[in-house]
C-alpha cells in the first residue's frame, strides 16, 4: 500500500567508467547501513544497483545515480534512480525477461534487479533515454 511517497535526496553520483560502479555500490551500502536496513535488504539493493549502473554504463553510455530516502507515512526506505540519455530500451518487456540480452551478458541484470527490490519503475524512450527507479522499504520486523 503506497500512499504519497516523499523522497529526500541523499547523494548523486556521476557514472562514466567501470570504477564508478563500485563507487555506487559503496554509497548504497553506506546509506543502507545508516538507515538500518537489514543485511539482506542491503545486499539486495546494492546488487540491484550494481546491475543497473553497469547497464547504464554499457548500454546508455553512462549517466547519473541519485540516492534518496523514501518516506511513506511512517515507513522509510532507501531508493535510487538510474538515469541515462542513451538510446533507450527497445522493448522493455523483452528486456526484463531472464535471458534476454542484446550484448554478451546472461540477460539477468534487469529482471534480476526487479526481483531484488520492493519497488521498480522504468521509463525508457529513444528521446529521453532510460530512467529506472528502485527502492527497498525498511521492514517492520527489522528484516
Amino acid at each position, binding site marked *: 500500500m503506497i500512499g504519497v511517497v516523499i523522497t529526500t535526496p541523499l547523494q548523486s553520483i556521476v557514472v562514466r567508467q*567501470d570504477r564508478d560502479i563500485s563507487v555506487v*555500490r*559503496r554509497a548504497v551500502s553506506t546509506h543502507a547501513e545508516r538507515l538500518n536496513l537489514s543485511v539482506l535488504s542491503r*545486499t*539486495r539493493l546494492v*546488487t540491484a544497483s550494481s*546491475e543497473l549502473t553497469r547497464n547504464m554504463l554499457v548500454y546508455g553510455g553512462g549517466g547519473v545515480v541519485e540516492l534518496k530516502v523514501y518516506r511513506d507515512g511512517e515507513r522509510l526506505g532507501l531508493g535510487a534512480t538510474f538515469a541515462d540519455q542513451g538510446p533507450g530500451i527497445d522493448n522493455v518487456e523483452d528486456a526484463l525477461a531472464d535471458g534476454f540480452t542484446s550484448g554478451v551478458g*546472461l540477460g539477468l*541484470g534487469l529482471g*534480476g534487479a526487479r526481483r531484488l527490490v520492493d519497488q521498480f519503475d522504468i521509463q525508457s524512450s529513444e528521446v529521453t533515454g532510460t530512467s529506472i527507479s528502485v527502492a527497498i522499504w525498511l521492514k517492520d520486523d527489522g528484516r
Partner: protein
Amino acid sequence: MTLERIAIVKIEECLLVTIQVDMHDRLALTLREDLGERLLTTQARGVLLDISGLDTLDTFIARVLAGISSMAKLLGAETVLVGMQPAVAMTLVELGLTLEGVHTSLDVDRGMALLKKLLV
C-alpha cells in the same frame, strides 16, 4: 593510476586468493589474468578463492569467478570458492545465478580439505 592487484599466495600446491575489497570490474579481470599466469609458473593444482570479505556479488563478478574456475580447470587445477556470506548467496539465487560447476565450501579450512580430496 595505481596498479591495484589482489594478492595470490602459494601454499603447498595451492594458490590462495583472499578478496577483501569491493572488487571493481577491472580488478576482477586482472585477478583472472594473474591467476592464469601463476597457475602456469607455479604449476599449482588447486585454487582457493576466499570471498568472505565480499558483501555483494553481481552478475559480472560472479561470471568472472566462474570463468576463473573454468580457466583453472583447463590449466589442470581445481577451484573452490569459500566464505560466501549468506545474504550474498540468497541474493545470487534471486538474481538467477547458479554458479554451476563451481565448488564451494563454508570456510578456508573446509575449502582446503575439499581441495585435497579433489586433488587425489
